[in-house]
């Protein structure tokens, strides 16, 4: 092959595939993100400090992990409303067992329990072809009930390593952030480089076509819910480790932020569209909004209003992108 100039090389990269690498929606998201950063620098003196940056990163990890699992489920055309309860389940189990069995074992057990909760969701939904909205609404209640069954009072373990997972810093970057980014990389690899992952995306696009292609649709869907459960439980463990205490009321309404992050990142609730990168951006954007409004001292109900407006804006951008086709 003859060498090509930088310009043609760039253009080829840009136009690889049927459409440009970045759509109007992606650009909108980037503009929005950069705009928020600039606004932060302008309005809040404390924004670009090392302390705040570490804080910001630590804050987005919880929603980041839940959103990643949510993305997998949304891609299959489903929704997982039970994530908030599974966060609590993972959190209280991690805190409750840490003193007896140590951090590693507690973490493994918490994640396993989260995966089992996802397994239950997935099997009921895929095997009996029920609507994920209803099923996970039910398991949301069941999981929360189990959490209170386990403990009615907050748990704060005395194990010395308990706070490591949520509080350790590697330079400015929190350990939890690194864990989260590894999870993102793994899920990206799963979705883009494995048969099961490609099938996950395809199922949301046209489930019947995938079934007729001889792919085990049920298993693929179940795996998506299991990953969602496991990631939520991990999120819960990191969260209680950061806070130093595990409340049984942890994680209430967390599913909303996760869905919002996916949607802002370009995921379609009908399934078949959405990306790991987009979701990461969605998570960071939501986190930035929270962080900024906190720094400026805006009351929390204003934050809710702003967040709602951003979600609608993002959906509008996605909708205009589709119309152009």
């Amino acid at each position, binding site marked *: 092959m003859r060498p090509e100039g930088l310009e043609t090389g760039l253009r080829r990269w840009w136009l*690889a*595939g*049927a*459409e440009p690498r970045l759509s109007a929606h992606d650009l909108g998201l980037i503009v929005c993100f950069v705009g928020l950063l600039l606004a932060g620098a302008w309005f809040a003196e404390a924004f670009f400090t090392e302390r705040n940056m570490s804080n910001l990163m630590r804050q987005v990890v919880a929603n980041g992990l839940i959103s990643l699992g949510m993305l997998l489920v949304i891609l299959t055309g489903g929704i997982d409303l039970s994530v908030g309860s599974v966060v609590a389940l993972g959190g209280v189990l991690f805190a409750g067992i840490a003193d007896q069995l140590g951090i590693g074992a507690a973490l493994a057990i918490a994640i396993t329990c989260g995966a089992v909760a996802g397994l239950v969701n997935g099997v009921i939904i895929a095997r009996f072809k029920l609507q994920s909205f209803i099923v996970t609404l039910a398991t949301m209640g069941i999981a929360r009930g189990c959490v209170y069954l386990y403990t009615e009072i907050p748990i704060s373990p005395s194990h010395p390593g308990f706070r490591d997972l949520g509080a350790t810093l590697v330079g400015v970057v929190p350990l939890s952030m690194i864990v989260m980014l590894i999870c993102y990389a793994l899920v990206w690899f799963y979705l883009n*480089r*494995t*048969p*099961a992952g*490609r*099938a996950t*995306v*395809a199922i949301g*696009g*046209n489930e*019947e*076509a*995938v*079934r*007729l*292609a*001889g*792919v*085990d649709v049920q298993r693929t869907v179940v795996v998506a819910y299991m990953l969602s459960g496991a990631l939520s439980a991990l999120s819960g463990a990191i969260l209680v480790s950061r806070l130093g205490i595990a409340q049984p009321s942890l994680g209430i309404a967390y599913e909303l932020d996760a869905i919002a992050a996916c949607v802002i990142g370009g995921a379609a609730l009908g399934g*078949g*569209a959405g990306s790991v990168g987009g979701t990461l951006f969605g998570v960071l954007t939501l986190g930035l909004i929270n962080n900024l409004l906190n720094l400026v001292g805006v009351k929390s109900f204003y934050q809710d209003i702003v967040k709602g407006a951003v979600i609608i804006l993002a959906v509008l951008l996605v909708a205009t992108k589709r119309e*152009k*086709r």
Partner: protein
Amino acid sequence: MRGISKRFGGTQALRSVDLTAEGGEVHAIVGENGAGKSTLSRILTGAVRCDAGEIRLGGELQAIANPLRGRQLGIRMVHQHANLVGNLSVTENVLLGCMPTRRFGWWIDWGAAHRRVQQILQRIGFEGIDVRRRVARLTAAQRQVVEIAKAVAVKPRILIMDEPSAVLAHEDLAKLFALIRRLREENVLIFYISHRLDELYAIADRVTVLKDGALVGTVDPRRTQRDELIRLMVGRALQDIFPRREPKPGRELLSLHGLSRAGSFKKVSLAVAEGEIVGLYGLVGSGRTEVARCIFGADRSAMGEMRMLGRALRPRSPRDALRAGIAMLTEDRIGDGLILGLSIRDNVSLASFPAMSRWGMLDRRRQGALVQAKVRELDVRPPDIERLVRVLSGGNQQKVVLAKWLLTRARVLLLDEPTRGVDIAAKKEIYATIAILASRGMGILLISSELPEVLGMCDRTLVMREGRLVGEFARQEASEEKILACAAGGVEASHAA
């Protein structure tokens, strides 16, 4: 219409098209896929706006800005893929937006509504449909009838029919033509879009040919030979769209023995050998598709026996059938064949992931090579495997589905209406591919409602009627009349199996 132009992104869909048509005329519009037929009709109905040009109705300049305006002007359209609400009754679909009401419009007058739709169905000659039934439970042909009823519920001034006959069986087609002739007498202008030349010769007064978005010409079908018309459409002469073959059937691959499924078919026995193309013909609803779905494991059969290469076959899912070496191209490529939002690469490899992955990970390079090879072999255009399937034309989409099944290295290929809604050039390529596959020893079961296709391609043709096999014709003894008579049940075929 004068100088109509329309651009979609990078493609010029219509290039300054002029068209004149009169009331009381059946004006056919023909052309290959992507010639601009659909775009032209969508501009006329107001679904999209033209970039340049003007439309005059009865001498008056009209800007048809939106579908509502189109309806007000009396322009109605019968869509190719029925545009209906599955969960509503036939009545509601036909009268959508204009249900009869009583008490100042507060309550729907259901009795009157049902009666009115019944009358409409009677008037257009299709009374056999229960108007209370939900549309989702109708067959494709019945849905098409509902779509037609919807368009003519109020007498239109201009009626556009986009491939109305694609899913209709022979007798329904006759009824449709009777309706069109009646409307013509009532001075309605009918635009009839179709791929089937027979129909144009049967019904059209004038034929306008489009090619690549430009007008080729308007001709009188009574004075234009079929070959001439095809040449105008394709831009070159097509001697014979069916490839020459020398069938050498080998050993038996697939056989059914008294296969039955409650409510769809009974005691079906047939066999497909290596290198053989077996046709399965029947009217819509005769159970052809259901038999194929059973073989493929998409539905489970109740009784009977299937054998593949001598071994008993009991597919519980398409997965089992694929493992046994059977693949099936379904009739509805949009509904259950493709994932429109994904690339050619993903769509083609979907059924063959195990062959291109190691330890649960995709070998992207191997995947690319396998997919690229099939894409080249079938001449999918453009040959760019990262392209989304959504942007391909119908013929190329069908090739992608075919590529998917070929990649599975199946020994038996079930083809359910493989050329539906595909233009003549792509049809020819698909026929050639089928012939090559057979010559390599693949056994093919070809389900089709197009008689020329069955006659041109198949070594043997089996005929189904009302869920039973009622006839078998070898290539030499098959003719349109014989097969049709057998399928419609007019004459008991002497060759009945």
